[in-house]
């Protein structure tokens, strides 16, 4: 279980995070929601090592860990899929999946090993791509999103952070990506989903954590919560 407690971060005069806590148990999809400026991305950046919080603690299985940079986070098994996907559109699916961690011997690429691993992974995730050796530029938005998510799994992570994975997708492709998120959960991964789309959040998450003005503003089990109560927590209408 990965747990962030009492995280605070100040940018100049703005208190972006003020004692925020977040629990990420394995095999559970946690949705992080909140209005613009609520501190969602700051919290995610603190967990993925892009920024260092001013105070607070991150623990893994109750042991405190130090996440000073993105590399630390990856070494601890925290994998982030950014909203812009960070794919090389001129390379094929295999090359993108293993980018920067190519299987190789004396610098010679192990094409066959990498393609085998790619096909196995995509089959497990039930990602359907007709030809995995065409440049990623030729894939649909949903397929690209799936490739980016599959790529996050290459280092055998414990936590996958997804930043607005459905923002740019149509209805059918959104459904595919939500299915993929459920399969990540079924693999026993902790999933942190940042999304503006409450319909997606309600469809796929197990728990919803609401941030408002840099503070925890509510914690719901998705199955029990109504849309109205979540919206009220986001806007502060309930308070």
């Amino acid at each position: 279980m990965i747990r962030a407690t009492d995280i605070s971060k100040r940018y100049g005069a703005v208190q972006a995070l003020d004692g925020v806590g977040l629990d990420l148990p394995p095999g559970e999809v946690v949705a992080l929601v909140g209005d613009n400026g609520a501190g969602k991305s700051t919290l995610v950046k603190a967990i993925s090592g892009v920024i260092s919080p001013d105070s607070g603690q991150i623990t893994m299985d109750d042991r405190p860990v130090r996440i000073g940079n993105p590399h630390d986070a990856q070494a601890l098994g925290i994998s982030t899929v950014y909203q812009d996907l960070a794919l090389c559109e001129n390379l094929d699916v295999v090359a993108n999946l293993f980018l920067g961690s190519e299987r190789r011997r004396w610098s010679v690429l192990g094409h066959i090993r990498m393609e085998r691993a790619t096909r196995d992974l995509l089959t497990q995730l039930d990602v359907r791509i007709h030809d995995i050796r065409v440049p990623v530029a030729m894939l649909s938005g949903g397929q690209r999103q799936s490739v980016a998510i599959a790529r996050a799994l290459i280092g055998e992570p414990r936590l996958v952070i997804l930043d607005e994975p459905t923002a740019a997708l149509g209805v059918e492709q959104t459904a595919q990506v939500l299915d993929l998120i459920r399969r990540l959960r079924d693999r026993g991964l902790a999933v942190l989903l940042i999304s503006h789309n409450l319909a997606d959040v309600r469809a796929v998450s197990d728990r919803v954590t609401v941030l408002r003005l840099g503070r925890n503003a509510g914690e719901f089990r998705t199955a029990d919560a109504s849309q109205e109560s979540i919206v009220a927590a986001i806007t502060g209408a309930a308070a």
Partner: protein
Amino acid sequence: MSTTTMNPPRRPYSPKQAIERARRGDLGAWPVVGGLVAIAIVFGSLNEHFLSPENLTNLALQMAATGTISLGIIMVLLLGEIDLSAGSVSGLCAVVMTILNVRQGWNPVLAIAVAVAAGAVVGLVQGLLFTRIGMPSFVVTLAGLIGWQGLLLYLLGERGTVNLPFDGFVAKLSDTWLPPWSAWTLALALTGVYGGSLLLSRRLRRAADLPVGPAYWAAVRAGGLALVLAAAVLVLQADRGVPLLLVIFGTLVVVLDLVLRHTAFGRWMYAVGGNAEAARRAGINVTRIRLLAFVLSAALAAFGGILAASRLAAVNQSSGGSDILLMAIAAAVIGGTSLFGGRGRTYAALLGILVIQSITNGMLLLNVDSSVRYMVTASVLALAVAIDSLARRGSAR
């Protein structure tokens, strides 16, 4: 296996897919091959000498130097950058080599090695200015274009021309011809290695339960290579034989292609050219890749300049000047290397220089005025860039 049903084996493109790809502007090497056929027909019918073994051998000799420079240009184009100094660097390093060899009496191989190393240092300097200071590569290498030309003139001094002895090692480079048996052995070995690697790859893929293409397709490809090589050897054999210069250039093309496609370094070159930010986030040292590309570009330019000096058996104030740089860039782009980075193979240098050089050669045979030659060459370059731009727009969507 469910994977094999999910990912059907890659087949040669059906006509429908081919049209779809063509519509997107992704035409592969076919426009270039078509262009070469058209050039052969047009010039062949206008001048009976154009397709003669003697002229085709001259063409092969003319190609090697500029083609090698073009290979270097491809290294930086793959990153979406440009190297405008390649022409000047080629001239400068040829002068360095000649002065060391002729005036200082150095061993020619050592002189060549030092000159290529000097080129690499020039590339390193330009690469550092680009990566560390963040100067646009266009400006860095534009300064290089003029600056290295200046250094060349300074080194040549008053006399302006240094001749290489005709029977010396350097001049002999471009006047050495493979004996028939070794030319045929080489062609046979290349076909054998290529066919063998196709078979081996098929076997390994099947062992890993990966889809494989149809067997006849491997046979067609190996057979095609055998045909092309046999035709080339036959034609060249009818004149003086296969020139060593062509073998050197061909080796560089093949080796660099293997490096780009089968090593981590090559993969990272394409990655940086495709999306530098994504490459950086994936943990690739983008700065190092960029430096290496500029070093490679300048070193290849240096070697190309040495080949040009060998053919001329001299260096002079116009070494590496005039239209060599533009020809090298045009060849890379015509061969299918994208100006926008991340797309292209080293065979672009071979195909592109073949197109450019045969147009130039054909028009020289027809006594076309240089004014017209420039305009035609420019039009071919513009056409190639237009196709590249359309392909980019098509895939960006």
